[in-house]
């Protein structure tokens, strides 16, 4: 176990190293780093001072070493727009994104597993077909367009929910959260539902497929033959056996939810990392873009690592020896 974790950790470091090289090449080597890293408003003296400060007159490998050194110490430059350390801007907005992502994941799981079970137990009923048709739509409709429709219906036509922002937040252990006030819930409801839609469809399909497969297995037939109530057969025998793939997918999809939050945050003006990165790209605020890229890569590597480890704990059939495939 320890061996496995250490090996995966080393791999993660290698991936991080490769990604940092890619980001470095992207920002420093493609195009003119002076244009990318220095505010367009800067005058000639500013430009020369920054070139010297950033070491852009040094050889490329030397620049990469400096870049790495600064990245490791969390110094990724000041944002042009806010004149604050870029990394701090990102970290300040991370709780909002994580709250949105977790809320979406909870919606997807809480609705998706029962709906998928229903569709799997009664695949030919009207409800079963309706659930599957809905999940196909959930896959096909572009997230941002569904978000617009939600705003159109619930904010513009019905006037029930606010169109944008996070509403008032309450600090829990120094982290601002929305879900503790009614006003916060109103702000959270639409973005979370929008972000959840795709994952909801995915979980419905997975649960349905798993259920249909499990129902054909001997242990379910035997449980029924023993005369166990349907409730127990489904709740214990079926559900327990389909949880492993579902849990894995939930873990893996958490990263993708955080990535897709970029779109949802932009639609609903949710003040998270995703909206910040889009605003920064449009404002050519490069230090923030670089900081975001490195933060998100680290986040993904951590998520993938945790999922791998949790998976191997959940499913003893998974060999811990990394096959390197």
């Amino acid at each position, binding site marked *: 176990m320890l061996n496995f974790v250490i090996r995966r950790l080393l791999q993660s470091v290698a991936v991080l190293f490769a990604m940092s090289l890619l980001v470095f090449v992207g920002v420093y080597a493609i195009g003119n780093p002076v244009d990318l890293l220095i505010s367009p408003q800067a005058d000639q003296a500013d430009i020369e001072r920054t070139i010297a400060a950033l070491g852009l007159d040094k050889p490329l490998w030397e620049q990469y070493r400096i870049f790495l050194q600064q990245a490791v110490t969390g110094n990724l430059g000041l944002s042009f727009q806010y004149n604050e350390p870029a990394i701090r801007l990102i970290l300040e907005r991370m709780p909002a994104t994580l709250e949105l992502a977790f809320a979406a994941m909870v919606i997807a799981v809480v609705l998706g597993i029962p709906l998928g079970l229903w569709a799997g137990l009664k695949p030919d009923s009207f409800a079963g077909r309706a659930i599957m048709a809905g999940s196909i739509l959930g896959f096909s409709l572009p997230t941002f367009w569904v978000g617009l429709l939600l705003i159109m219906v619930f904010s513009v036509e019905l006037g029930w929910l606010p169109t944008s922002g996070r509403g008032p937040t309450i600090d829990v252990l120094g982290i601002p959260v929305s879900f503790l006030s009614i006003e916060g819930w109103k702000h959270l409801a639409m973005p979370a539902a929008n972000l959840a839609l795709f994952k909801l469809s995915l979980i419905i399909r997975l649960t349905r497929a798993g259920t249909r497969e499990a129902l054909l297995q001997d242990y379910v037939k035997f449980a029924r033959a023993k005369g166990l109530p349907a409730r127990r057969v489904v709740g214990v025998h079926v559900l327990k056996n389909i949880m492993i793939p579902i849990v894995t997918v939930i873990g893996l999809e958490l990263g993708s939810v955080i990535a897709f939050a970029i779109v949802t945050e932009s639609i609903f003006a949710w003040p998270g990392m995703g909206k910040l990165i889009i605003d920064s790209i449009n404002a050519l605020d490069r230090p923030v873009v670089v900081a975001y*890229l490195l933060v998100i890569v680290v986040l993904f590597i951590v998520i993938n690592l945790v999922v791998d480890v949790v998976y191997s704990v959940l499913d003893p059939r998974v060999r811990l020896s990394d096959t390197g495939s």
Partner: protein
Amino acid sequence: MSAAPVPADAPESPYARIARDFAASPLALGALAAFALLLLAAVCAPLISPQNPYDLAQLDVLDSRLPPGSTGADGQTYWLGTDEQGRDVLSAIFYGLRISLGVGAISTLAALAIGVAAGLAAGYFGGRVEALLMRVVDLQLSFPAILVALILLALLGQGIGKTIAALVVVQWAYYARTVRGTALVERGKEYMEAARGLGLPASRIVFRHLLPNCLPPVIVVATVQVAAAIALEATLSYLGIGVPITEPSLGLLIKNGFDYMLSGKYWISFFPGLALVLVIVSINLVGDRLRDVLNPRLQR
């Protein structure tokens, strides 16, 4: 998969069988017809559009933000309304379809070519080439497509060519993985051994023997990926980092109408979105059916 099991009394080419099986689903046929119509509308946009939406001389500011079905200053009817510059939304959708479908098709074809080449090389030759290529594929696929595209466009900047490039980078890995998987299976089959035994050159074995047998799964992945590419392009353009404002795709049209949606003028965003959904859903339905038809395990 090269030849379907053919009954002795009624010889039938595999293409005829695929077409017949495909047509057995009315839903898939309808989706194919819908997609054909959308494609036709995109190709013929200059002929069927009531106006050229990007010729400023044809726009009348007095006609701006008219609801669907209104009559304009010159007596013409705007069936889907107009946008903030008095542009006919229907015409803008036809022209937007061109960009959306064009970007989707070009990026898919390019990604297909690169991915298939990489997958064949990895599957046929194996060894260090395979290890390196598949490492890159694994690494890339561990990040969501939208994130990879966003990173690229953040570094490259906006533009149609750059958007296509980003979509190609995002997509090639799917094809490479699919082809490599199939090629690994096919490599061990007897007809490949026979081809090698005949002493055919590697290029002929790969392109004439291996490639045709790797195609069915690739075709299925490609239909799904075209839809995904179109949706991703729309999303990137909606975020303002995809195609430029001078060549608006459906996604950019939706973005431009978003501000007016909040004041109840829904049509500027809603109808381009509807067109986008029609494109994506029809392609997905066709792809779904193709997967069933081309899957040898489901063949009767």
